[in-house]
């Protein structure tokens, strides 16, 4: 943890909540949940208390523009900055992965009776006295409406994973709701943590929820109220004085869109921007940024893993030996240290290091051209014309693709290319614009090999089934994201079991095993876990990187300025 928050003085001072969490997680992980959000240390490092009334303003610099404001509709990471600030979900995922009640009174579990009949019956009690930003009371009807809207035929909802299993939603009272599940599906808890509740009294009146005016000026129950949007420029929130949770302590928040990361960093340096999340500070400014006075730079882990994704149906990759040789001859160290300035950490797993399901005991990668050559020699790949290996008349060659215009990735690609040429593999670079590469080329498995940064989980649940299960191959009629077309019976069986059990210890065992299999079989060659450099101004308190959220302004309501 110490190297994650290298600030000017080496350690963070203004992140007491995190330290407290670390302390707590040492004693008992379960207690952490009861501490709730925005928990601030009362002792230890001298952190000033939050102000009595909302005070001050925070400018958040974003290199992409948030544009999608209905949290149930398709959106990208920057949009979630809006969703988590303006809306609330039933419960939220804390940095350590525990779920903390928000609109619900408690997170349902088999222990507290909220989940019964082996995961088929769910009951959720809701917090009383919560009001929407327009003053209307929040009730169970809103939850029912939200869950039904997601499944409404014409509605362009973001994802129906989990929601499609929900049956017979019953409002048992203004603050109690229950439903049945078609089958037990443990990741649904985490899925609901990322499902914000929308107001029935507004959206149900709209002619078409897809194009409702609400989508341009959202109304939620979150810590901040929507104030103004200047398209192409900025979005402003103001404090929701009637917020049901901790905070807000800030009078206002400005989301400023600065499309160029260098320009964004320049404004952070000069102090016009207080916080730079998501894409963050370009790695080549890391050195310089850590020396800035009055600024801190956090290496914020992300759930995305940079991997080489081979298409296992391509003749070059069907054989495990080839994948192992490619992995062995990949200079991960040079990639991370030189190109990424040592900011992200090399990884062996598809799971983020901070996840409770992360297996730290996987075999360590060793960069060795000799070993790679030996593996290929033994597997019967012989050197032929121009030093390219062949076996059974097939040349060991493939095209490596990634998004155009991503300078670091292109550099990484060329570095790997040079290594792989040494083991007799012929590589062609075939890059495409994002909209092309992530289209049919990706989802219909038309690629040969990709360099991609992506997440291997279900929402924020560690279940990797959508990415690894053999029934998740779209090109073979599956519905998931197993684009490399990996088929492994043992992993399939384990992942099925992982979905059906609510026992975290048991699930942990299962996912450890899955990671071992993936590390051995290498359906993906893991390079490193993304760790954007997020910049934050000194004196801004409350920042907590959270691997279980898709962005780190998730708890904006409990942020404040030290005086």
């Amino acid at each position, binding site marked *: 943890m110490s190297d994650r928050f290298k600030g000017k003085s080496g350690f963070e001072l203004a992140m007491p909540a995190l330290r407290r969490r670390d302390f707590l997680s040492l004693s008992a992980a379960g207690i952490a949940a009861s501490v709730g959000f925005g928990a601030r240390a009362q002792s230890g490092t001298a952190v000033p208390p939050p102000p009595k009334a909302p005070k001050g303003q925070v400018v958040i610099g974003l290199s992409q523009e948030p544009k999608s404001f209905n949290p149930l509709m398709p959106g990208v990471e920057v949009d979630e900055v809006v969703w988590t600030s303006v809306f609330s979900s039933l419960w939220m995922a804390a940095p350590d992965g525990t779920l903390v009640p928000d609109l619900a009174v408690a997170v349902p579990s088999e222990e507290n009776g909220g989940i019964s009949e082996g995961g088929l019956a769910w009951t959720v009690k809701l917090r009383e006295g919560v009001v929407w930003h327009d003053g209307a009371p929040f009730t169970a009807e809103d939850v029912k409406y939200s869950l039904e809207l997601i499944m409404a035929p014409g509605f362009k909802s973001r994802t129906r994973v989990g929601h499609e299993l929900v049956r017979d939603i019953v409002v048992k009272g203004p603050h109690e709701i229950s439903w049945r599940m078609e089958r037990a599906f443990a990741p649904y808890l985490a899925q609901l943590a990322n499902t914000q509740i929308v107001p029935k009294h507004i959206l149900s009146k709209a002619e078409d929820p897809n194009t409702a005016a609400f989508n341009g000026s959202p109304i939620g129950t979150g810590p901040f109220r929507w104030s103004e949007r200047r398209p192409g420029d900025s979005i402003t929130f103001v404090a929701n004085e009637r917020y049901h949770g901790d905070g807000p302590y800030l009078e206002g928040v400005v989301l400023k869109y600065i499309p*160029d990361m*260098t320009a964004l960093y320049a404004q952070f340096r000069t102090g016009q921007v207080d916080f730079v999340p998501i894409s963050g500070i370009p790695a080549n400014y890391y050195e310089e940024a850590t020396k800035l006075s009055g600024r801190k730079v956090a290496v914020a882990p992300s759930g995305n893993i940079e991997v080489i994704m081979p298409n296992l149906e391509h003749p070059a990759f069907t054989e495990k030996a080839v994948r192992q040789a490619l992995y062995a001859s990949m200079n991960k160290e040079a990639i991370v240290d030189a190109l990424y300035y040592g900011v992200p950490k090399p990884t062996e797993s598809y799971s983020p290091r901070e996840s409770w399901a992360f297996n730290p005991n996987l075999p360590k990668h060793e960069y060795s051209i000799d070993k790679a050559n030996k593996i290929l020699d033994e597997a019967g790949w012989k050197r032929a014309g121009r030093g390219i290996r062949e076996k059974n008349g097939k040349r060991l060659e493939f095209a490596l693709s990634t998004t*155009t*215009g991503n300078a670091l990735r292109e550099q990484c690609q060329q570095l790997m290319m040079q290594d792989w040429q040494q083991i007799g593999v012929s590589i062609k*670079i075939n890059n495409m*614009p994002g909209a092309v590469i992530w289209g049919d080329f990706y989802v219909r498995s038309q690629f040969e090999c990709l360099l991609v940064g992506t997440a291997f989980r279900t929402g924020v649940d560690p279940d990797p089934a959508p990415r690894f299960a053999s029934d998740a191959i779209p090109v073979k009629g599956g519905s998931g994201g197993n684009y490399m077309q990996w088929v492994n019976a043992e992993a399939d069986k384990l992942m099925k079991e992982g979905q059906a059990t609510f026992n975290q210890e048991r699930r942990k065992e299962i996912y450890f095993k899955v990671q071992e299999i993936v590390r051995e079989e290498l359906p993906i060659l893991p390079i490193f876990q993304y760790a954007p450099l997020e910049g934050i101004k000194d004196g801004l308190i409350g920042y907590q990187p959270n691997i279980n959220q898709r962005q780190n302004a998730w708890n904006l309501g409990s942020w404040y300025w030290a005086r």
Partner: protein
Amino acid sequence: MSVVTPTSPQAVASSPRSRWNSPAIRRFRRHKLAVFGAATITLMVVACVFGPMLLPYNDTYIDIRQRFAPPFSGSHILGTDPLGRDILARLLMAGRISLSVGFSAMAVSIAIGICVGVIAGFYQGVVGAALMRFVDAMLCFPSIFLLLAISALIEPSVPSIVLLIAMTSWMEVARVVEAQIRSLRTRDFAVAAVSMGASNTRIMFRELLPNAIAPIVVAATLNVAHAILAESYISFLGYGIQPPTPSWGNMLEGAQSYLTSAPWLAILPGAAITLAVTSFNFIGDGLRDALDPRLDQR
């Protein structure tokens, strides 16, 4: 490039004409900027063709320990890029690509432009009108918008970039050729050819076209300049020629983020582009003066 450039001093002596001492060539030679342009391009071509053989570094050799070496600081004369590759070697190899893209795109665009222009100018009527409305429609797109929209269609490679640029730069040529053919068509020699029973294709391409060659040559030169610029624009916006093949344009891609720490990454390729494009424009300008029929008649 529809700039009206003033003609050079009209001191054109009416001396006896031999083929290689024609007034046109003399006029071109007297156009100092054009001569400068021609010399620069010749030099660039020679350097790009033979230069890489004389250098100790390969343009794609990666040496990560040597990254970001500034120019004139060590064995790398013009420094290195973020992967430690020699910039001079890359500039010269990139020159090969960029200049070939420029020439090939010019050739393709001129070919398309001539075909469309000749047909539209010769047949006029419905065919001509339809073709010219299509030309007008294509010209309604600001060039970058069109380049970007079409670049979405293709997988970026050298041939496809050539095609892309050609597809967006043939319209001016078509217009020029169409206007020329339309006016030439009514001249005596064309009428005579028709009365002698020559085929339409023959009249179009053997009789009319050679007489319209002067403006085509000028347009061709300017199109090379345009193509080199266009290549740099699409590369800068991330839709250009793919690495590791260097081009002047893709060497600039991403250079903006190193502007404070390694400005040479942005300055050098840009200077090369500017020099090449300026030279072609000078040549085009000189050619325009040299081939101007009004000057010829004096």
